[in-house]
C-alpha cells in the first residue's frame, strides 16, 4: 500500500499476517515493515477492522476497557533476567512474538483510548497534569476524564464553528465538512 503503490504484495502479506497464515520469518519481515511504514499500519488497522466487522465486534465493552486499564496500571515491572533460549529459531520466534505482543498491546491501547474518545465524544486526556509526556494514563485518570454530558453540546458547537470557518485549503474534498457530523454528532452512542 502507499509507497508500494496500492496495497500490493505487502498489503497481501499484511492480510496474511492478520489471518495468521505466515511463518515465523515472514512474520518478522512484515512486522519490520509495519514498524517503518505508516501506510502498512493503516492497512493492518483496516484488516483488523474488517475482521471485527465480519465478526460483528462493533464495539468494545466498557468493562473490558476498565479491566485493561486496571490491569496495565497494576502490572508489575519484572526486572529479573529472562532465560536464554537455545536455538536461533526459538530466539527469532520469541523476538517476533515480542514485537507482535508489543504491537498488539499498543493497538489495544490505541483502540481503547480512541473508543473512549468517541464514546464520550470528548475525553480529557490529562485533566490535572501539565506534563503531557510524563502523565501516566491509568484507569483512575481515564475514569475521571469522562466528560460531563452538559459540556458536550458546548464543545460540539465550538467544533462546528472551528470546522465551518477554518481555511478551505484544509483537506479539500469533503474531509473538512465530514468532521462536522462524524466527530461532533452521532458518536455518543458508541
Amino acid at each position, binding site marked *: 500500500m502507499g509507497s508500494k503503490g496500492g496495497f500490493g504484495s505487502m498489503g497481501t502479506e499484511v492480510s496474511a499476517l492478520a489471518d495468521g497464515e505466515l511463518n515465523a520469518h515472514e512474520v518478522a519481515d512484515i512486522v519490520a515493515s509495519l514498524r517503518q511504514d505508516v501506510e502498512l499500519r493503516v492497512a493492518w488497522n483496516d484488516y483488523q477492522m474488517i475482521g471485527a466487522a465480519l465478526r460483528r465486534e462493533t464495539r468494545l465493552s466498557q468493562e473490558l476497557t476498565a479491566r485493561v486499564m486496571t490491569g496495565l496500571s497494576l502490572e508489575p515491572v519484572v526486572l529479573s533476567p529472562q532465560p536464554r533460549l537455545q536455538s536461533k529459531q526459538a530466539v527469532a520466534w520469541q523476538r517476533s512474538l515480542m514485537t507482535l505482543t508489543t504491537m498488539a498491546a499498543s493497538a489495544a491501547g490505541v483502540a481503547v*483510548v*480512541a473508543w473512549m*474518545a468517541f464514546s464520550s465524544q470528548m475525553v480529557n486526556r490529562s485533566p490535572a497534569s501539565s506534563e503531557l509526556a510524563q502523565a501516566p494514563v491509568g484507569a483512575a485518570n481515564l475514569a475521571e476524564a469522562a466528560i460531563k454530558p452538559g459540556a458536550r453540546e458546548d464543545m460540539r458547537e*465550538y467544533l462546528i464553528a*472551528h470546522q465551518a*470557518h*477554518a481555511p478551505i485549503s484544509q483537506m479539500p474534498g469533503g*474531509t473538512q465538512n465530514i468532521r462536522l457530523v462524524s466527530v*461532533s454528532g452521532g458518536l455518543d452512542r458508541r
Partner: protein
Amino acid sequence: MNLSITVPSRRSQQRRLLFLALAMLSALWGMTRPAAAQMPDDGMQWLQRAARAAQNLTYTGTFVYRSGTVAETSRITHLVDAAGEAERIEVLDGSLREVVRIDDEVKCYLPENRTVVVEQRSAQRGFPARQSIKSVNFGGIGENYTVRKGAPGRVAGMESQLILIEPRDSLRYGQRWWIDIQSGLLVKAILIGDQGEPLETFTFSELRIGGSVDRASIKPSGRMNASNWLVRKPYAVDSRQDDGMWQFRTSLPGFHKVSGMKRQTRADVPPGSHWIFSDGLAAVSVFIDPLIVQAEKPETGLFAMGAVNVYKRILGDNLIVVMGDVPHAALRQLGDGIEARRK
C-alpha cells in the same frame, strides 16, 4: 574530365561537431527542462491542483472516514453550476446525520438532538477569501512543511499520485494525500500524528466525476424534517481589528491570524471572540467566551475530539478554548500566552 572532390576543412569539421554537440545538449536540455522546472514546486503544484479540483469539479461518491478505530461511510455530492457551489454529505452508518453546504452557508443536521446548526461563512472572512478561492493560496506551507511527490498508486480504481506533506517542526502534523492523476481530485488523505500514527483517514471507495447532478440531490433527505427542530445559528460579525481586550503574548511559529470575529451563541450571554490561525494547511481556533454565571464551571485541560485536539483554560471570568488539528503542545503554547490587556 575535371573531377573535383570537396574535402571538408578541419575548421568545417569542428563546426559540424560543435553543432552536433549543441543539438544533443539542446535535446537533452529540452528533455530534462520540464522535470527540472517542476521539481522544486512539484508537490505544491499537486496541492494547488487538488484544491482547485475540489472546488471546480462536480462529483458524487462514497468515502470512508476513520478517526482512531471508528470508521464511518458517507455519501458526498458536490456540484458546481452557474448558481455556485453546493455540497451534501450524508452519513450512511450509525445515526442519521447530514451536512449541506450551499456556497458559504453550512447546515449540520443532527436528528438525535433534533438540532440543525447553521454557520454562515463570510465572503471576507476566512482564508482564502471566497473571491480568491479559484486560486487557492497555500502560502506558508513551504515554510512549515516539506512537500514532495511519493509513489503513484491506485485508490478506488483510479491512478493516483501520492504527495507527502511532512512538518518541519513538532507544532503540526504530517499528511499524505493521494490525488487522482486525471482529475486532480483528492481521493485519499491521512493525517499523521507525531509518533507516525494515522490520526484520521479519508478514502473514497467509489467516485464518479463529472456528469449531470441535479440540484435537488443537494437538498437534505425527507427524514431531516427540521420544521420543529432547534435551530442554532450563532450571530457572527467580522472583527479583524483587535478590540484591545486581549493580547497574545506567545505566538505559534508559522501560524498567522487569518480571521477574527465576534460571536454570540446565546441572547442572554455577551458575545465572545473567535480567531483563526493557519500555517497554510492546519488551522487553530481560539475562542474566548464570558463564563455563564449560573452554569457549572467548565472542565479545563487537554481534550481530543477525533483528530481535533482541544485545550481549555479559564482566565478571569472567561473561558478560553483553543482547538485544531495540531499537537496539544502547540495549543498550550498559544493558549497559555493569552492575557487580558490592562485598561
